[in-house]
């Protein structure tokens, strides 16, 4: 009796281990959660971006200060993350608009467009990053 209790296979719950190692999110799922994370990130970072816009338009001294500030590597790195967040949110958003119109909802196409979104947003980040610095 007690042995049976020990050997009993327990039902599977969404443990952290299951989430990390056992359940594999398909690529469109990753695009979806990254769309949410990038959106939240942009919302939170808006205060910082507005502050930079404010200072850079206030005076020439402010503009130069922001320019210098944006050249510091931690700032540069943070800005690059935000550029990626914007690019990803943009590309994934365009994909969702097409999905809303019932275009590309079959599995093959949905996976293909997910790869395109992932690649295009990284390429955009690289391109904009290269142009900014």
């Amino acid at each position, binding site marked *: 009796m007690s042995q049976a209790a020990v050997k009993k296979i327990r039902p599977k719950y969404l443990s952290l281990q299951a989430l990390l190692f056992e359940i594999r999110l398909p690529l469109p799922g990753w695009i979806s959660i990254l769309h949410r994370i990038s959106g*939240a990130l942009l*919302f939170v970072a*808006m205060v910082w971006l*507005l502050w930079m816009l404010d200072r*850079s338009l206030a005076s020439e001294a402010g503009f130069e200060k922001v320019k210098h500030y944006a050249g510091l590597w931690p700032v540069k790195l943070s800005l690059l993350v935000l550029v990626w967040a914007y690019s990803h949110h943009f590309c994934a958003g365009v994909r969702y608009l097409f999905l809303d119109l019932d275009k590309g909802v079959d599995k093959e196409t949905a996976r293909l467009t997910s790869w395109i979104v992932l690649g295009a947003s990284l390429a955009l980040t690289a391109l*904009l990053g290269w142009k900014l610095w």
Partner: protein
Amino acid sequence: MTDRVVTGAHYGLRDWLAQRITAVIMAIYSVIVAFVFFFSEPVTYGVWRDLFAQGWMRVATLLFAVSLAWHAWVGVRDILMDYIKPDGLRLGMQVGTLVVIACYLGWTIQILWR
């Protein structure tokens, strides 16, 4: 009696549709601004100030900011509805979000028309 709650989504198509329409407006603005920057001379203070001194740029940026405010409200509200379960806390965070968005918007207007 339905189980509608005050912190819910108002059960309509309006916000869903608004999020899509504002997305399209912001996408068009983004593409235009990206092209302007990509093919413009190195940005100096003069170029930067003059760009935002033009009427069309101010109005377009304001349109972008209002679209962003509405879009972000729907998005953040969706996130809060998914992860924040206690009603009081959720309502508090939703009100906080609206206050933050209102501040962002007021500040943007102040920056554009100083």
